[in-house]
């Protein structure tokens, strides 16, 4: 019987995983119940590696400090040597063990929209940063069989192309202080660039393009909003087709189905099911409550949200069926991770997180039970 499990993305805590000291994980485990009573499984975590205090700590321990703050993800993670990455792996394993107890790390999450920038220097750092995180995932896998880091998440980048700012010299009668003009890239241009940058990342990590063992899949995340490369169903399909055509990325890149983002972007479950090129590339999922038409932030899902989420949970279960897994293996497509991560970025209260994880677990059980019933 196919199964999926809830997990938690650590971005709920802005103090970071290295600097934070939250006993919340034990509370999470205690709160999670199963059919046969309390769960004995520790809730897996998805490690968000772009949190500012963590970046500061990494930069300090690897001698990158001295740069002007703020420390951006690409500056810190893009500047790590193999030795530093090894040290960082040990520190993460130690801290996760210390603060979170023995629990699996199933994914690493990043936020590096600079990867699609036209500026080569910035883009180069971003490529190195993403490559560094993939290295980190591999090292974590090697460090313990517990940490089966399946995916490394990345936003597909920003459309910002160029900007010109000059002091205003009359003509405009509002209170603008500058003449500020910003140009966005055309979709086909920036998509080409993203593909090229991902190829560079893959080449940087492997050195040999054909090797695939020990690889986490790169999961591209859709962000709603006109300034993102991957922002709606149209761009999702376009990128899926580009990846399908690319020999190097074909088996290494998929999509993170952030259910709230996809819903805000107006994507319906039937569209995904109909568009196999997209469905076949879903390698991981996120879930959180959201406003129907706006990205105010992650919230606690309401009962109406949960009802709307059920077909999405069913889709993730479908992706874990033996038939689907076999199909993906035959076509050399990356597999679905088997986890749906609760994402409550910068949450205001631990209760909220515990409640949502518990509810997700119940909903998964409910959908599974309904499927079993209908199969009988």
């Amino acid at each position, binding site marked *: 019987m196919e199964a999926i499990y809830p997990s938690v993305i650590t971005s709920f805590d802005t103090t970071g995983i290295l600097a934070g000291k939250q006993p919340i994980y034990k509370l999470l485990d205690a709160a999670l119940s199963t059919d046969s009573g309390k769960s004995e499984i520790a809730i897996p975590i998805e490690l968000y590696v772009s949190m500012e205090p963590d970046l500061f700590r990494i930069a300090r321990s690897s001698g990158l400090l001295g740069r002007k703050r703020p420390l951006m993800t690409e500056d810190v993670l893009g500047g790590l040597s193999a030795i530093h990455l090894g040290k960082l792996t040990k520190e993460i394993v130690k801290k996760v063990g210390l603060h979170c107890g023995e629990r699996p790390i199933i994914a690493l999450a990043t936020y590096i929209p600079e990867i699609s920038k036209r500026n080569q220097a910035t883009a180069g750092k971003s490529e190195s940063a993403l490559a560094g995180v993939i290295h980190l995932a591999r090292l974590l896998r090697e460090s313990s069989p517990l940490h089966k880091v399946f995916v490394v998440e990345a936003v597909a980048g920003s459309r910002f192309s160029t900007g010109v700012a000059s002091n*205003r010299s009359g003509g405009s009668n509002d209170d603008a202080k500058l003449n*500020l003009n910003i140009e966005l890239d055309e979709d086909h241009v920036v998509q080409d660039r993203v593909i090229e940058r991902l190829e560079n990342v893959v080449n940087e990590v492997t050195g040999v393009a054909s090797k695939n063992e020990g690889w986490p899949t790169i999961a591209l995340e859709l*962000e709603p909003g006109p300034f993102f490369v991957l922002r709606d169903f149209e761009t999702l399909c376009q990128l899926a087709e580009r990846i399908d055509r690319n020999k190097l990325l074909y088996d290494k890149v998929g999509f993170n189905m952030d259910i709230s983002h996809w819903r805000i972007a107006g994507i319906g479950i039937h569209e995904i099911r109909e568009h196999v090129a997209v469905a076949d590339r879903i390698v991981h999922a996120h879930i959180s409550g959201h406003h129907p038409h706006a990205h105010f932030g992650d919230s606690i899902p309401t009962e109406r949200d949960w009802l709307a989420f059920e077909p999405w949970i069913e889709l993730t279960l479908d992706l874990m069926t033996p038939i689907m897994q076999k199909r993906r293996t035959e076509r050399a497509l990356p597999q679905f991770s088997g986890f749906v991560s609760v994402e409550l970025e910068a949450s205001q209260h631990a209760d909220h997180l515990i409640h949502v994880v518990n509810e997700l677990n119940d909903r998964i059980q409910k959908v599974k039970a309904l499927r079993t019933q209908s199969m009988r």
Partner: protein
Amino acid sequence: MPFPLNQIDNPSVLEEQIGKHAIVRVDRLCRWLFGPGTEPHYHFAPSIITRSECELFGISGPRFAIRKYVFTEKESEGRGISALFNLRRLQWFCNSIRNAHPTLFQEDQLAAFADHGGALADSLIIPPKRYDAFHVMRCNLGSYYGLEAGSPGLLPFLQHIQLGGGMCAQACIFMSLCLQEQYASGISGVAELTAIANEGNKLNVKGLEDSQIIRVLNSEKCGLAAFREVIAPNWNSSRTRSRMLSAALRAYALSNVPVICVLDLTKFAGLHLPYFLRRWFSVYGKNGVVLRPRKTPAADCRGRPPAKIPAAKDCKPGADCHTRPPEEIPTAEKRKPAKHAVLVVGCDRTGGLKSRFLLNDPAKYPLFQATFRDLRNAAINQNLTLIPVLPPAVKTPLLGRLPGIGGVMEWSRVVQVVADGSSAFGVSENSRHWPGEWSLVDFGTLSQRSGNDNIPVAQCHLQSMLLEAGNRGDLPPIGWYWVQQLRTGLLGWPFRRSTSSQVWIWDSKADGPMKPELRAKVMERVVAVFDCDSVSLVTRYTRKSGKVGATK
């Protein structure tokens, strides 16, 4: 035990990330709004605005804002939340831009934004007690900001910064979208609104013209209805025109329809006046906010001999003197109005000649009080622009809109004042005060509305009357309608007595011409007329027969 997350205990973090000056300005705003309060709490928190600002420049941080929770002591409930302000991490944001786009801005430009930019991103406010006499629009977005479900309605507010991708107009649109969130097809951040206004891939980050504001609100991405209210040319007396505009503005405010008001910031803030007069003759001053003349920025002083540095008193704000010394500005430009958008978010419940409105000014503070005369005095070239932001189904303006579309007030004048329409409904002419009080009502949600839904007291009576009529089958079950209350009393609007007389229900979906001779057409817009005292139907227009038929 569960515990709060992401709290900021170290005040140095605030100073380092938001900036010293910005914190002082936010504290001043809190004191202005709530008086001395309890110790605020600070948390890192998500924000749709700071996120969109990062999106614009394609930078990874700071996506999260610093959220300030303000608490006040409440008589009955003890300590309660009064506001949450998402604060921009201005210092961090400017540093990020500096890192990511080293050549885009000059150092002094970024420094000016970091020190003088508005710190308030998307914020929610419970209006303090001193606004109890006002009807204030509210939205139910609290749960998306982590507040308990069922928390009271909150007033949205936002300060704009140009680096955030837009100016006052976009900030007003954002606040309007929040207030109309049930009907909007999407709520976008400020930068995204600029993208909608610009269309295509080139963004000119500046304020929006009236036509652009209307286009953005009517676009598929926002999904609302907006137009500029235009008063019919046959209202030739300026006094009457003002009264009509004031009545329309009040009707919108009482109907929870935010109105974007475009005026001259210079006059509004009193910047054209000598410093000592600003307190008495400007909206800012009357609300206790007196702007001091700014010192000329260091950029303008750099490299000049001391004698050539313009003195602060020579600055004529609103005419770009903040960035250029006055002698470099042509006289014509000095006189140019500083176009500025504010949002009308409420009005006092009592009404009358000196009826006051509440305004959210994205350049400064929320909940400024101003009379209609204040607004008219701050108008650009005596031409006050009002843009109501309506649910998409509403097509009929109150006064009128271009090109030549008559408003429902104009229609009512045709049948109730100009012609002998009143007598056709069994009420003698001049026995009531015209145009009465107007409100926009969704009949579909009448039964679901409760006292918690922020209905003005006067409308509670109207609501029960309409419900009763609806139950009898005298009203359409769903749809938006303009409801006009005509009260009997002494001749001459706006004096009124409490005894009500008639309620007219007007179709809000139709557009009509402004020509008074088309009276028959106008009558098609009347859905029903009720006698308020007996709560009975006086007449109903029957579409089948095309005649007005009295039922009583």
